[in-house]
């Protein structure tokens, strides 16, 4: 099968590149081993500090609404971090003290939302907190297997019964000017977070839970729908196991599912993610890129891979695949002229594109633009 561009790795990076190329009239395919790091996405693009019309519109066309308002956002354990661009239901406050009094509400039996850490953190900022639990009959069946009472399971129920949460919170609310709820709303019905905010007479803040991330999965569903609606071919659950390269040009790739049926393309984008997604792998001696065997920037001395103080910045997180200025992948020091690398697989190699999800957006667009310029 032949495409204009084949994208290896279907996370945030791969989908944004795919959407951009399909919009420009290309015929593309995305091949992705499994699901991706959006399942852990906080909902905020930390490294993007400036407003960008192009990014906001790209997401909006897929039905993902972003807002730009530089400030700080609340982390799941009650601390704060600088942010400017985030999903609409992820608040960014001018200062950490976003209210006087806060009501923190969780569902009984749900262990993946850390209310007391949140309360401690908010109280440090001078806010008074009250914790309350909600019991909804609709959630009782989930509690039969408490190990599976997870964000997504709750979110599926909430798409139907969110109005009850509004009613119950209104009853619980005393003189608080803010309410903190877990991020379990708007998985399929994207209007739910907004309607909850309208229904509760206080500022409603949705705070992060343990994975899977509901805003992350929602983003993924919408981007994938957009990509397929534009005519893109998404091969889910398949893995590129080998590439066929000749004199600096990639001709085709072989996948686990299609065995001897090779996928050919004029251009390729490698966006297979970091260690989590196996875009990068390591053994006791080396850090490797497994599909093409690309050059990887890492420290020779293994003792310098990590910092023994767990909370410190970890050097291995900055290792990544090497690319030239136009993001052509480097192999044995030479660029492959039709292979572009984008997203977390770059690690900390290209600070000019930012880091984490912000880096993904910028490198995805950059790589797609390079292909379209050809």
């Amino acid at each position, binding site marked *: *099968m032949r495409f204009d561009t084949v994208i290896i790795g279907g996370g945030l990076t791969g989908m944004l590149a795919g959407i951009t190329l399909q919009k420009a009239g290309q015929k593309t395919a995305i091949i992705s*081993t*499994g*699901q*991706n790091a959006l*399942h*852990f996405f906080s909902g905020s693009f930390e490294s993007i500090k400036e407003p960008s019309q192009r990014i906001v519109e790209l997401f909006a066309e897929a039905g993902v609404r972003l807002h730009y308002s530089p400030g700080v956002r609340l982390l799941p354990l009650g601390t704060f971090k600088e942010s400017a661009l985030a999903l609409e239901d992820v608040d960014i406050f001018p200062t950490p003290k976003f209210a006087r009094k806060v009501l923190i509400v969780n569902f009984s039996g749900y262990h993946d939302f850390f209310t007391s850490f949140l309360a401690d953190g908010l109280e440090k900022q001078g806010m008074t907190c009250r914790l309350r639990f909600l019991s909804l009959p609709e959630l009782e*069946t*989930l509690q*039969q*297997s408490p*190990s*599976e009472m*997870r964000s*997504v*399971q709750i979110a*599926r129920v909430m798409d139907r019964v969110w109005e009850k949460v509004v009613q119950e919170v209104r009853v619980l609310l005393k003189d608080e000017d803010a309410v903190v709820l877990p991020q379990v709303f708007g998985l399929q019905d994207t209007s739910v977070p907004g309607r909850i905010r309208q229904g509760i007479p206080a500022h409603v803040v949705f705070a992060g839970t*343990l*994975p*899977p991330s509901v805003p992350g*999965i929602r983003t993924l569903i919408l981007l994938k*729908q957009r990509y*397929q609606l534009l005519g893109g*071919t998404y*091969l*889910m*659950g*398949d*893995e590129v196991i080998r590439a066929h390269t000749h004199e600096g040009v990639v001709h085709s790739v072989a*996948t*686990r*599912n*299609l*065995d*001897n*049926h090779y996928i050919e393309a004029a251009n390729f984008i490698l966006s297979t993610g970091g260690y*989590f*997604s*196996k875009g990068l792998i390591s053994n006791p001696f080396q850090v490797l890129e497994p599909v093409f065997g690309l050059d990887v920037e890492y420290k020779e001395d293994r003792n310098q891979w990590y910092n023994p103080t767990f909370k410190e910045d970890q050097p291995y997180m900055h290792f990544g695949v090497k690319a030239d200025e136009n993001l052509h992948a480097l192999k044995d020091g030479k660029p492959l002229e039709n292979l572009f690398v984008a997203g977390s697989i770059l690690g900390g190699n290209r600070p000019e594109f930012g880091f984490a999800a912000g880096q993904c957006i910028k490198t995805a667009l950059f790589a797609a633009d390079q292909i379209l310029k050809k």
Partner: protein
Amino acid sequence: MKLQEYTSSRHNFEECMKCTVCTAYCPVLQANPLYPGPKQAGPDGERLRLKAPYFFNQALKYCLNCKRCEVACPSGVNVADLIQSARIKYDTTPPKLRDRMLASTDFMGSLARPVAPVVNAVTGLGVTKTVLDATLKIDRHREFPKYSSRSFERWLKRRRKEQTVFPEQVAYFHGCYVNYNYPQLGKDLVKVLNALGVGVQLLEKEKCCGIALITNGMSGQARKNANHNVAQLRQAVLDKGLKVLTTSSTCALTIRDEYPNLLGVDNADVRESVLLATRFIFEKLEKGASLKFKSGYHRKIAYHTPCHLERMGWGIFSEKLLQMIPGVEFTLLDSNCCGISGTYGFKKENYEVSQAIGEPLFAQIRSVNPEVVACDCETCKWQIEMSTGYTVMNPISILAEAIED
């Protein structure tokens, strides 16, 4: 070594990093609170089961074996294989009469076929359904697949001569459904392949692929079928140099993947030659062969990717083939399980869960409102037809309808 025995398992068990991604994609977890979910039933449970079989949980029987957890897992853990293997290894309860009946598709087929009109009339009766529901716990809402009085094998055997004139030959693993219930699909395949200059042969003697035996706790019988079929495949592939095609995504997955992974039956020398017919046809067309389509053909088609095809990653061939037909208006339905999963949905205790699982798919079909739903799986066909009233056709039958006679 003891330590190894207590800590290691197959199916990429060690790769699990507890990321919870699989739990977001299990259709049963969304509909049945008694099911512990893929992570718990799969890698987490396996860790305990390795220590002591006591930890085996009967609730594992609720797993559909749809393999959506495997498609979603970023670490390549074969979650469904872990679950099905645990059922094979630890579940010692003998299968019920009903499960044995539901699982024995070829045996039931050969019994029913000669008296097909009677069987069809009887299984269609309200009173029969009530009795089956009460005695065997086969849900009364189910329509039984109709039996055909002429088997496909007989039909093709009569045409053996005319098939041998084609320069290229393939073997066809038709499966129980085409043989006993719906020979027309097999005839459609023969029409399309003949139009491409390819003649169709039978295997000397095929047996049911065995998927229903596996999921109904009869892995011993399944292994016998697997060994028999692999020997047959070797004859076709190694001795005669043929490719072996199927029109059922589940037969294909079972023969290619469940044989080695669940039943321990080695098929490495023939695996790559067992193909879904749509893939074979797509590849022929890609290499320059062509089909003559009727002019003025028009169909609004919504394509549903069956779970097992999703796992094999070959849905793309059926999709692209349908999109190639002039006059086809194509919609790709979101990838969701229809809920039937072979014999699972026939069981009374699963009926409601089965329908709840399928509802998002049914709702989308209703909103797209196609003329036909296309799908490569026979049990999806029963489920979607019963639950939505829309006609479901195999992509091969749509191709056969669209090309000139």
